[in-house]
């Protein structure tokens, strides 16, 4: 375990990104505390200011750790596999459990180092008064420490299962989002449902305990995310996190111990080679178009070959997987409408519209960077770029094909959530204008997220880095600016909060809906202009980068 730990930690700390991350992290925390540090000899004896800063400080740490903790472990094993060093490790006397614990300790040690760097900020908040040492500060660091360990273990597990770094990042961040936000959804939706008995509510409470949000809210002195004060949230999260860590470590160890290199990709039997009867059965079963074992048709003259290639070489681009995703979101959106019927009429429309909007924004945040960030870097990494350069395809054709390959599946999945709006409009036709404005915002956001991810991603050589940066950028835009909103009473003025929220598509959508807390700002059309400008910048970066890479050196 020790050699692995030493190697992982050294490799991580040596990189310039780690240094930049530490410096940036410290600078943000320092600025935050400096903002509310007592000036001119006056101190707030009630501790109000301290608690305000502590809230932003705590949520900032939570957000930062959710983004940083899984990033390194998610690419750890899969990168070893791709570089060929996994075979060397497995061939050494190091046992799989030592390997997993070493990697986990290495990844967590780095995140814990970041937490240690936050101690001066926390100490400053504590020094300003109004914060309890153990029940608030201690509880916050306990939750964050466990969270770092849990998400690192989750990242490692995913890293051992998948075959590419971008898939590892995509899946890990999806699971993190599912655990942090998705785990709260059942309790949020069913808390007022008359038909949900004690047992159902109990199950939703257990699920909610997997999310760190209620525990952090409790530690920061906020009322629970579900409306009520949740005094046992920290203990329940701790138990849940330890269970997840143990499960992930066990599964990753089992995976590494079961000859992970002894896998081949079976091509399966092609439907075209089956007997006419078997072929007919398969065709009917897969509705003719979605059979993964059917031979693909030739690329048609009207199709962009790069787009078809991109769709074929990623699982989500395949018709069968795309249909499954569309189906899942279709069902989810209808479930949300069903949830609306359990709420009172006055809360219902706004509550469900908000929930659907959050789901759609999450969908874009989750899918757009994974679909678009590696469009160029993956090509460079696999050395396919050189081959693409040798074809007569123009830079414009390449860029168009690549962007369409990300926009089309994202658009199709977004369309799958529209039935929820149709159902809501049937209940309340007066919401038509609102629904149109929401769709406009989300459409521009989806295009922007794809183009910005593609543009920024094209600047990096490694897909994993491109994906992580694109995720951070899009998540920072949608969630990061909400930290300013959290400080809307103090330390930030309403004007400052409004300016900070203008670029945020989630805030703009909630503003259109009239969700409490967002209704008082004026975020559109400023948000649309900002996103349009960002879209143009993303497209320009990508076009320039493709043109630059396509030229002879």
């Amino acid at each position, binding site marked *: 375990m020790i050699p692995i730990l030493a190697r992982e930690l050294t490799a991580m700390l040596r990189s310039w990104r780690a240094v930049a991350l530490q410096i940036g992290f410290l600078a943000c925390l320092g600025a935050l505390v400096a903002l509310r540090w007592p000036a001119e000899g006056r101190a707030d004896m009630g501790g109000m200011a301290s608690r305000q800063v502590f809230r932003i400080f705590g949520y900032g740490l939570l957000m930062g750790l959710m983004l940083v903790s899984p990033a390194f472990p998610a690419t750890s094993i899969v990168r070893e596999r791709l570089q060929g060093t996994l075979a060397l490790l497995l061939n050494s006397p190091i046992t799989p459990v030592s390997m997993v614990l070493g990697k986990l300790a290495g990844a967590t040690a780095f995140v814990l180092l970041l937490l240690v760097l936050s101690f001066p900020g926390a100490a400053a908040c504590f020094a300003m008064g109004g914060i309890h040492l153990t029940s608030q500060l201690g509880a916050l660091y306990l939750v964050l420490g466990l969270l770092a360990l849990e998400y690192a273990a989750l990242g490692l597990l995913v890293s051992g299962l998948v075959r590419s770094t971008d898939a590892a990042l995509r899946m890990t961040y999806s699971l993190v989002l599912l655990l942090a936000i998705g785990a709260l959804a059942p309790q949020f939706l069913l808390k007022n449902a008359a038909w949900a008995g004690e047992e159902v509510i109990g199950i939703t409470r257990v699920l909610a305990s997997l999310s760190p949000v209620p525990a952090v809210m409790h530690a920061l002195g906020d009322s629970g995310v579900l409306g009520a004060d949740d005094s046992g949230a920290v203990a329940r999260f701790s138990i849940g996190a330890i269970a997840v860590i143990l499960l992930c470590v066990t599964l990753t160890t089992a995976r590494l111990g079961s000859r992970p290199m002894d896998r081949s990709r079976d091509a399966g039997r092609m439907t075209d080679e089956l007997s006419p009867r078997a072929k007919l059965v398969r065709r009917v079963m897969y509705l003719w178009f979605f059979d993964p074992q059917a031979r693909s048709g030739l690329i048609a003259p009207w199709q962009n070959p790069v787009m078809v290639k991109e769709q074929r070489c990623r699982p989500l681009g395949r018709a069968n997987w795309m249909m499954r995703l569309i189906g899942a979101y279709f069902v989810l959106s209808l479930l949300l409408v069903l949830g609306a019927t359990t709420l009172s009429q006055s809360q219902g429309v706004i509550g469900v519209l908000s929930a659907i909007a959050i789901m759609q924004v999450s969908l874009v945040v989750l899918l757009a960077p994974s679909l678009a960030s590696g469009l160029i870097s993956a090509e460079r990494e696999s050395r396919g770029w*050189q081959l693409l350069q040798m074809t007569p395809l123009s830079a414009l054709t390449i860029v168009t094909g690549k962007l369409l390959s990300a926009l089309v599946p994202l658009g199709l999945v977004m369309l799958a959530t529209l039935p929820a709006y149709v159902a809501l409009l049937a209940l309340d036709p007066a919401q038509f204008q609102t629904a149109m404005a929401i769709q406009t915002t989300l459409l521009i956001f989806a295009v922007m997220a794809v183009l910005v991810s593609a543009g920024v991603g094209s600047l990096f050589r490694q897909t994993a880095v491109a994906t992580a940066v694109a995720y951070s950028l899009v998540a920072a835009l949608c969630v990061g600016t909400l930290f300013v909103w959290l400080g809307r009473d103090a330390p930030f003025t309403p004007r400052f909060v409004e300016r900070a929220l203008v670029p945020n598509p989630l805030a703009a959508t909630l503003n259109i809906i009239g969700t409490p807390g967002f209704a008082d700002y004026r975020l559109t059309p400023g948000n649309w202009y900002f996103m349009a400008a960002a879209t143009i910048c993303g497209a320009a970066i990508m076009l320039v980068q493709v043109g630059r890479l396509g030229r002879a050196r």
Partner: protein
Amino acid sequence: MSDELVLRTSDLTKVYGNFTALDGLSISLERGRILGFIGPNGAGKTTTIKILVGLVRATRGEASICGAVCGRDTAKIKRLVGYMPDVFGSYDNMRVFEYLDFFGAAFGIPRRDRKRRIDECLELTGAMRMKDLFVESLSHGMKQRVALTRTMLHEPQMLILDEPANGLDPHARVEMREVLLELARRGTSLIVTSHILPELARICDTVAIITGGKLRAFGTLDQIMRTVRHSRVMEVVLGDGAAVAAASQVLAGELGGTSALMPSREAAEIRFTTDRDDAGLAAILGKLVAAGVRVVQFREIPMDLEDAFLSVTGQTGAKPTDAQSGAKPAPDRVPSAVGVGA
């Protein structure tokens, strides 16, 4: 095969800062011929290839393929040349047919002809059975075949293959050789780089040896051998090991101190180097027989491409050569004597 020149380079030079990667390369190649482009690692082979396919711009000089100037007529070059780099460039989750269909479509092969063309090329490279397999699941040898298929799809006039035999098993190597020879027979010109020199010697009509960015030898294999060979390596096999001493004495007397004698009592043989012609060698054989030495074999050890390469690059000690146009001797690498071990 015809004498029509397909490739012509003149004083091709590439400089990166203070480092000259390629220095005044001038070579040419006729239609339907195979050029073996050899050199040690970092010699400038890949730089040359990248200039030819338009990925790198030459600092000085010019190269043209079928009249299209490399680096200027980029669109034409892409259609004229099929380039197979030393790495495969795979796309995950794609079957071989889909992979080839993409490149076919990218090169604008009409849909009605594309399937037939893919099948033809797969058949020629012996990769038809891989058609439905996933690209990432292929072995290295299989990938090489698929890469060659991809390179041939748009029927280029010239194929540039960087290490096509790298990582192939002996059986696959023989098959690859047959494919390349068949392509040459059909009129395609080929530039092939390889570190497996005996393999290259079997297919190449012309050889270019490059080291340190400079062309050291260029010509047909025979021309290079003739120029490189300043002395012959002879082998005398005797009827019995006891006769080695006597035979050595006779040979030493005949050859004087100018040649190295390498006797082996166990193998009952003696090797020696000499610059004598056939008549001179016949006289030596006569002396051995006259001295009562029972000679079983008296033969010349043939020189192969590997010897020629080592000799030209100065790693064994022969003089460098300037067999044909553009080739420049390397005075700094002139060795003092030929040394061929037994």
